[in-house]
C-alpha cells in the first residue's frame, strides 16, 4: 500500500478556503484516493474520492495532478464545524474487499 504523508495540523479562519495536501509517491495504477473526516469520538466520515484530475461534490474538491503522487483536498469557506481530523487514504478494491489503512491525519482547527 502506498504510504501517505500529510501535515500534522493546520489552522484557518471561518470563511477561508483550506487546502490540505497529501503525498503518496508510491501510489499504484489501480489505487484510488479517498479522504475522510473525523470528529472526536465519532467514526470517520467519507468526504470525497478520486482517481485523477479533479473531483467536486457538495462539500469539497479533490485535485489530483497527472502523476498522482499527491492530492489536495480543498474545503471552500470553512466554518467552525469543519474543525476535525482529515485523513487521506490510498486504497484499491482487491477482489477481497478494499484495503483501507489510515495514516497520520491532519488536525484542522478553524477559528472565528
Amino acid at each position: 500500500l502506498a504510504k501517505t504523508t500529510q501535515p500534522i495540523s493546520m489552522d484557518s479562519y471561518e470563511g477561508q478556503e483550506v487546502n490540505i495536501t497529501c503525498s503518496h509517491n508510491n501510489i499504484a495504477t489501480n489505487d484510488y484516493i479517498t479522504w475522510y473526516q473525523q470528529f472526536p469520538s465519532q467514526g470517520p466520515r467519507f468526504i470525497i474520492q478520486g482517481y485523477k484530475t479533479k473531483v467536486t461534490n457538495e462539500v469539497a474538491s479533490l485535485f489530483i495532478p497527472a502523476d498522482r503522487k499527491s492530492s489536495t483536498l480543498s474545503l471552500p469557506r470553512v466554518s467552525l464545524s469543519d474543525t476535525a481530523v482529515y485523513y487521506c487514504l490510498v486504497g484499491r478494491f482487491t477482489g477481497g474487499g478494499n484495503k483501507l489503512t489510515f495514516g497520520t491525519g491532519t488536525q484542522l482547527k478553524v477559528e472565528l
Partner: protein
Amino acid sequence: AAGVIQSPRHLIKEKRETATLKCYPIPRHDTVYWYQQGPGQDPQFLISFYEKMQSDKGSIPDRFSAQQFSDYHSELNMSSLELGDSALYFCASSSPDARNTEAFFGQGTRLTVV
C-alpha cells in the same frame, strides 16, 4: 438510510475478562472492517472480512479474534483484556462496487478496561 450499527456503545470490563463487540453492516454490504483507536491516536486497522471470509489482517493481537456470520454481521472477540485495550473500536462496511473505496463507519464501541 440505514447505517452501520455497533453494540454495545459503551463497555466496561476488568483486566483478564472477555469482551464481544458486535457490528451490523449496511444492508447488502459484504465487507466489514474493524479498527481500534486509542486516545489521541489514528485508527489502527485490525481485520477485515469479505463475503464471510477474512480478507486482510492488520495489527490485531492474538488475544483477539473475529468472524463474519452468514447474515454479514461481524463480532470481535477480545480475551484476557489488558488496560491497553481501552479504546474506541470502530466497525465499517463497504459495498461490492469494485471502484468504490468508500466505507461507512459506525459510531463505535468505547471499551474501558479497569
